[in-house]
C-alpha cells in the first residue's frame, strides 16, 4: 500500500525513475510483476486474517457474551414476573402461606438482584441497558417494601393488605417488567447483531484472493508466451497457496456460518420464543391470583388473564406455544413443549371452573381451586412452568453445541491464511527471480 508522508519528494522522483526503468526493460517489468504479486498475496493473507479474526470475535461474543447476557436478562424478566405471581399466591393463602411459596418469592427476588448486579458489570457498552438496570435497581426495593406491607396488613386481617398488593402489582407491571423487557430486548438485539457480524461473508478477503489468483494466472500466461515454458514452479506454488487459502476461507466460513445459523435457529430463536411464552404464562398466573386478591373487583385482571393466555395458546392465529413448537427441531424439545401445551389446556379448564365458583359466591372454593395443592390451576401452572423449564434447558444445550461447532471452524484460519499467503508470496518472488536470473 502507498505510504504517504515522509521524504515525499525523493520517494516520488525515485518512484518515477523506477517506473520508467520498469516500463522500458524486461527485467524491470519482471521486477515490478514480482513485487505486485508478492504484495497482492501478502495483502490477501492480511485481509483474510483480519476479516476472519473479526468474525471469530463476533462468534465468540455470541457464545461467551451476548447469548449468556440475553439469557440472564430473560431470567431477570422471568424472576420478576415469577416473584409477582408468588407474592399473590402467598397473599391468597393468608396466614398459612406455604413455606415453599415464600421461599420461591425470596429466591426470585434474590436471583433478580444478583443477575442485575452481573448485568450491570457486563453491560458497559450499552446505554439503554444501563438505564434499565438503574430503573430495576431503584424499583426492586420499593416493590419488595410494598409486598411486605401487603403481607403485614393481610396477616392482621385488614383489606388494606389487598390495596398494598395491588399497588405492588402496579409497580411491577408498570415499571419493573417493562424495564426488564427493555433490558431483554437490548441484550437480544446485541445477540442478533453479533450473529450478523459473525455470519457476514468476508467479501473483501475473497475479492483480494480472486484478484491475486487472476494476477498469478496472468503472470504465468505471460511467462508461457515469452518463454514457451509451461510451468514456473514458483508461480505454481504461489497459485496453490492462494487457492488453498481461498478454499479454506470460503469453506471454513460456510461451515462456521451454518453452525452459527443452526445455533441461532435451533437454540437462540427457540429460547426467545419459549421465554416470551413463559413470561406470558407467568403473568396469566399472576392475573389469576390478582383476580381473587381483588375480591369481586377483579374484572380488569380477568381481562388481562385472557390476553396473556391468548398470547400463550393463541386465539385465531398461532400462540406462543405453537410458535415454540414449530421452532423445536427434535423430539426432546418438542415433547417438552407438547407437555406444556397439555398442562395449559387443563389449566384453562380448571380456571373456568374456579371462575364459576367465585362468580357463584364460593370464594373459598375458588381460592382452593387456584392455590390448592391438588387439582388446582396452581398445579397445572407448575407443570407448565416445569415443562417450559425443561424445554428451555434443552434448547440452551442445543444452542451451545451448535455454536461451539460453528466456532470451531474458525480456529486456525487466521494464522493459517497468513502463513500460507506469506509462503505463496515467497514462492512468487522465487519464481520471478528465476526468470530474472536468465538476464544476468
Amino acid at each position, binding site marked *: 500500500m502507498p505510504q504517504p508522508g515522509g521524504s515525499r519528494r525523493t520517494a516520488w522522483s525515485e518512484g518515477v525513475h523506477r517506473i520508467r526503468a520498469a516500463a522500458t526493460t524486461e527485467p524491470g517489468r519482471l521486477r515490478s510483476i514480482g513485487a505486485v504479486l508478492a504484495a497482492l498475496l501478502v495483502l490477501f493473507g492480511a485481509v483474510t486474517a483480519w476479516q476472519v479474526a473479526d468474525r471469530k470475535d463476533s462468534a465468540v461474543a455470541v457464545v461467551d457474551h451476548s447469548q449468556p447476557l440475553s439469557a440472564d436478562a430473560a431470567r431477570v424478566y422471568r424472576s420478576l414476573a415469577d416473584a409477582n405471581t408468588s407474592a399473590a399466591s402467598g397473599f391468597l393463602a393468608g396466614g398459612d402461606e406455604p413455606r415453599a411459596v415464600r421461599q420461591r418469592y425470596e429466591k426470585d427476588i434474590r436471583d433478580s438482584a444478583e443477575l442485575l448486579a452481573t448485568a450491570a458489570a457486563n453491560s458497559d457498552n450499552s446505554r439503554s441497558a444501563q438505564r434499565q438496570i438503574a430503573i430495576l435497581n431503584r424499583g426492586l426495593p420499593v416493590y419488595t417494601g410494598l409486598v411486605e406491607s401487603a403481607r403485614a396488613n393481610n396477616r392482621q386481617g385488614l383489606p388494606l393488605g389487598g390495596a398494598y398488593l395491588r399497588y405492588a402489582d402496579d409497580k411491577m407491571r408498570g415499571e419493573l417488567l417493562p424495564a426488564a423487557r427493555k433490558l431483554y430486548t437490548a441484550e437480544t438485539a446485541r445477540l442478533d447483531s453479533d450473529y450478523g457480524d459473525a455470519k457476514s461473508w468476508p467479501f473483501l478477503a475473497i475479492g483480494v484472493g480472486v484478484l491475486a489468483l487472476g494476477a498469478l494466472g496472468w503472470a504465468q500466461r505471460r511467462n508461457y508466451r515469452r518463454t514457451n515454458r509451461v510451468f514456473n514452479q514458483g508461480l505454481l506454488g504461489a497459485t496453490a497457496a492462494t487457492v488453498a487459502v481461498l478454499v479454506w476461507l470460503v469453506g471454513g466460513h460456510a461451515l462456521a456460518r451454518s453452525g452459527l445459523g443452526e445455533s441461532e435457529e435451533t437454540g437462540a430463536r427457540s429460547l426467545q420464543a419459549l421465554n*416470551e411464552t413463559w413470561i406470558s404464562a407467568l403473568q396469566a398466573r399472576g392475573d389469576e391470583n390478582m383476580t381473587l386478591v381483588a375480591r369481586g373487583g377483579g374484572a380488569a385482571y380477568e381481562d*388481562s388473564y385472557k390476553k396473556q393466555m391468548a398470547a400463550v395458546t393463541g386465539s385465531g392465529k398461532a400462540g406462543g406455544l405453537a410458535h415454540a413448537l414449530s421452532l423445536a427441531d427434535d423430539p426432546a424439545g418438542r415433547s417438552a413443549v407438547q407437555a406444556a401445551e397439555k398442562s395449559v389446556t387443563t389449566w384453562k379448564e380448571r380456571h373456568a371452573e374456579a371462575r364459576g365458583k367465585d362468580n357463584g*359466591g364460593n370464594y373459598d372454593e375458588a381460592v382452593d381451586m387456584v392455590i390448592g395443592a391438588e387439582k388446582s390451576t396452581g398445579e397445572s401452572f407448575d407443570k407448565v412452568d416445569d415443562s417450559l423449564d425443561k424445554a428451555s434447558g434443552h434448547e440452551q444445550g442445543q444452542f451451545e453445541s451448535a455454536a461451539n461447532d460453528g466456532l470451531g471452524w474458525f480456529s486456525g484460519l487466521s494464522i493459517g491464511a497468513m502463513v500460507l499467503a506469506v509462503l505463496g508470496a515467497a514462492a512468487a518472488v522465487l519464481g520471478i527471480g528465476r526468470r530474472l536470473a536468465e538476464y544476468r
Partner: protein
Amino acid sequence: MGREEPQAVPAPSKWTPHRKPLAVAVGGLAVVTGVLVSTVLSSTGTGGTDGAGDTAPRGVAQGHPASADRPGEEPKPEKCENGDNPAASLRPSKDSEDAGDAVKRIKEKGKLTVGVDQNSYLWGYRDPTTGDIDGFDIELVRAIARDLVGGDGPDKITYKTIPTDQRIPAIQKGDVDMVVRTMTIACDRIDKVAFSTAYFEAGQQLLVPKEKDEKDKSDSPGAGASGDDEDRVKGFDESMRGKKICYASGSTAEKMMKSKNYKALGARPVVVPNQLDCLVRLQLGEADATVTDSALGAGQAAQDPSVELIGEPETVEPYGVAMNLKDEDLVRRVNKVLESFRKTKWRPAYDKWLGDDRMGTEDEEKPAPPKARYRD
C-alpha cells in the same frame, strides 16, 4: 349520583409480548408507555384521570350529589326532579303471611342470594384469617335471612361478591335477590331498582393523619414541616391549597372535588382506582388527605389508628337495600325487618363495627338510625 366506593381495581398495565422487536422502536414506545403508566399510577397531580375509562364504575355520571354547594355548608338530602325524596319506600308488610311471588320464590328455594362486598372493611369484608365474610351490611343480611328463610347459616345465605358497577345489572338479571352493599339511595337509581328504607346515613368527609399530642409538639418547636400545624389539612378550606388530596376515580368524592367551589380550594388531586388505595397513598406520604364517604372512611381509620375523620360530612347519602322493581312484596318484607332492626339491632351493630368514635362525630350526639320514610 351516588356515593360510590368503586371496586374496580387498576387495570394491569398494558403488556403484550412482541416477537423479534425492533429494539429502538419498541424501546421508545415502551418509554412513552412506561411514563404514561407511571404518571397515572403515581397520580402526582393533574386532573388527567377524569373518567378514567373502564376502571370507573358506571352510574355516577348522572344525577346531582346531595352535597352542599359550598364547602363547609350544612348538607341537604337529595331531592328528585318531581320533588320526591328518593329514600321514601313502600310501607312494610303487616305480617309474614301476606307473601307475594318474590317472597314465595325465596322461601321455596330455602336460600337467600345476596350481592355483597368482600372488600369494605367494617361493612362487608372477608377476614383473611377466618375466611368468613362479616360487617355491618352482613349483620343486616343475617337479620333479613332469619326472617325470610329462618336462619343465617351458610346453608341459608349465598353471598355473591359483586363489583360496584355490577350492582344494578345483578338485580335486574335476577342473579341476586337483593344487594346489601353500601349502596346509596339516589334519584337516578330508583327507576332501575327498588330500595328499602334507609338503614344508614353517610356523607363525604375528610380523612387525615392524626395530629401529634400537644406534648410532642412542644418538644420540637418549629422542627420539621410535616408535623407542623400550618401544614395540615384541617377541613374543606384554605388549608387545602397546594395539598395532595386523594379520592377514588368515578366516586362522588371526585365529582364533589371537581365542582367549581371545591376546585377553588386549590388542592392537587391524587386519583386512585379504589378508595382504599388512598390509605396506601396516605401511609406512603404520596397524599396529604383523603376525601371519601364517612362509612368507608371509618373503615380506613379502623385499619390505621394514626388517621382520623375530621369535620362534618359535606353530603347526605342514605344507604338502602336494593331489590328488583317487580319484587314489591320483598321490599315491604325487608322494610318490616328494618323496622325491628332499627329498634333492637342497629345500635349494637353500630357499636360493634363503627364505634370507637371512628365516624368522627364531634358533638356528643348519640348515633341513631335514619328515620324510615314511606311514599304510600
